[in-house]
């Protein structure tokens, strides 16, 4: 039971990071980031390969690039940078001034194609089998802890990171930068007229969000000690979308509530339940449930359980 709760806590904090990143990109910046989970994966793979040690070459049971054994906090730094770098690359061609439905479709295509690439190119990060045996951070120093104790220490560590990211995100949200980002979302032309650069602002939000996703991926890979394409199917992105839509797009606390409801209750709890039917039935059905929940949210509470506060503007400006 203690194991169960500490595992759920780690998932919850990691998922909260994703939700804040998406909230910044989609809620404030209006970027339909349908490739969100790809940036988490980038961080996870990056953290894994730099802590697994050098690839032993042909004949090894897993193959990967950039193998090295960096000490504790460095893999997370690399993960953060990997997420940001990937976001910079993808953002450079997808964040132009194009229709948002096209933008969404293009990001979805990127996500699907990259999944295919990583799955099929075995030499990159071991293809569809993924990487295993990622060393858990500081397990040498903390060797006096029991397995259970280590779990709780890790949960506390993710909580500290989540708190730090929360402070960053909350600060960004109320800063002039956050207001500029929301202005670009609401009226791109008007924002450009007062001297804001929409493409550049969106790219900044995309990269910062990408870094947060990368960090969350690093935390998750080190916790699970493994990472494979099965962990980041395109559907995972939409669990995060459902969470922030359910909680309230644009509201930093609302999206945490949404995360708690969707990620933890719908996606994690069933994995601890006894299996019904054949293996995988529950997994498939929970995605059907997520899709349905999404439709219901859009239909009856499009602004979420805790809606974001409306900005104070004069009545004329609101039309």
């Amino acid at each position, binding site marked *: 039971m203690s194991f169960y709760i500490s595992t759920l806590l780690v998932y919850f904090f990691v998922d909260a990071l994703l939700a804040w990143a998406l909230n910044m990109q989609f809620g404030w910046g209006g970027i339909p980031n*349908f490739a969100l989970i790809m940036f988490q994966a980038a961080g996870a793979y990056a953290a894994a390969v730099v802590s697994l040690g050098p690839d032993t070459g042909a004949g090894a049971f897993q193959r990967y690039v950039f193998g090295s054994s960096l000490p504790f906090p460095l893999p997370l730094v690399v993960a953060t940078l990997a997420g940001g770098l990937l976001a910079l690359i993808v953002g450079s*061609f997808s964040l132009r001034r194009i229709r948002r*439905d*096209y933008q*969404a479709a293009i990001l979805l295509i990127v996500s699907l*194609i990259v999944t295919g*690439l990583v799955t099929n190119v075995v030499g990159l990060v071991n293809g569809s089998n993924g990487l295993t045996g990622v060393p858990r951070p500081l397990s040498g120093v903390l060797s006096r802890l029991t397995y259970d104790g280590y779990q709780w220490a890790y949960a506390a560590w993710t909580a500290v990171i989540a708190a730090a990211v929360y402070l960053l995100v909350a600060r960004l949200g109320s800063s002039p930068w956050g207001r500029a980002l929301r202005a670009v979302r609401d009226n791109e032309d008007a924002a450009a007229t007062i001297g804001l650069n929409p493409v550049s602002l969106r790219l900044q939000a995309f990269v910062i969000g990408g870094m947060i996703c990368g960090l969350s991926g690093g935390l998750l890979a080190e916790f699970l000690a493994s990472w494979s394409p099965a962990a980041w199917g395109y559907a995972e992105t939409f669990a995060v979308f459902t969470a922030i839509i359910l909680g309230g797009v644009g509201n930093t606390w609302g999206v945490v509530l949404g995360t708690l409801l969707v990620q933890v209750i719908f996606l994690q709890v069933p994995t601890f339940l006894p299996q019904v039917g054949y293996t995988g039935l529950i997994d*498939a059905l929970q995605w059907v449930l997520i*899709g349905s929940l999404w439709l219901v949210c*859009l239909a009856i509470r499009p602004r979420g359980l805790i809606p974001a506060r409306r900005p104070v503007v004069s009545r004329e400006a609101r039309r």
Partner: protein
Amino acid sequence: MLFIQALGFGVITASLIAIGAMGFTIQFGLTNVLNISYAGIMTAGAFAAFIAEELHLPLVLGVVLALTVGAGVTWLLGRTLFAFFARRGAGLFEMVMVTLAVNLILQFGIDAASREQIYRFAFPQGTSLHGGPFTVTVTQLVLIVVAVAVFAGLELLLRRTRLGKALRAMAAEPRLARTCGIPTGRIVNVVWLLSGALAGLAGLAYVINSLSIDASVGTGFLPLVLAAAILGRAGSTRGAVLAALALGVVTEEVAAFGGAAYGSVAGFGILALVLLTRPAAVAGQAAGKVEVTV
């Protein structure tokens, strides 16, 4: 030699992409709903034909089933769910979210029903034909012919019939078309049915060529179909076919020389390149003018 052989495969791949992209683009051009659930519909159509095959029904019946299931499901979704959200004022992007949620439900619903298995789809391939450097099976030849026939049929429909004229009028100016007495509701019906039938056909064609089927085939095929439809401009069947040809040939050439895994990446590279250099060519009209019409 390898180059020319890959060219042949490119044309076959292009035919598959073209069937899917034409069905996608006629609907997208008219209703402006970027229908991600098209992927799930392709899978559903393919599975309908697969079940017919497993029950040893005649081949023709399998094809008819794929078309019917595709058309039926798409029409039902378009007229009920999508229309419901459009009435509530959903914008272009909100409709993408709706179709995506539907795709999750379709894909994982089929996943649950098919017990998450990959099945072998033993569609008869016919004898291999040799012509110069090319080796194609009869079935692959038929797929190319089908793609050409679909293209010709759509062109005839759009350019030569009253229905086609009405359809083009509505795609250009939906309000004006309605004012002129064009039965827009009926035309939207026709387009959902047509798009769905082509989705079913595209899904079937895809699994006939790949010889295996599972719940994710549609989603796996979607990037190329979507890229072709976007590159070819919404609503343009000719554009879709040309873009499909380019994507098909590049995909297979890169796969032949650089490894299969890089094929679709190269296909996407074209789209990314066009986006970088000529975003206006891809993005279509300004967002303000375009609205959802279902």
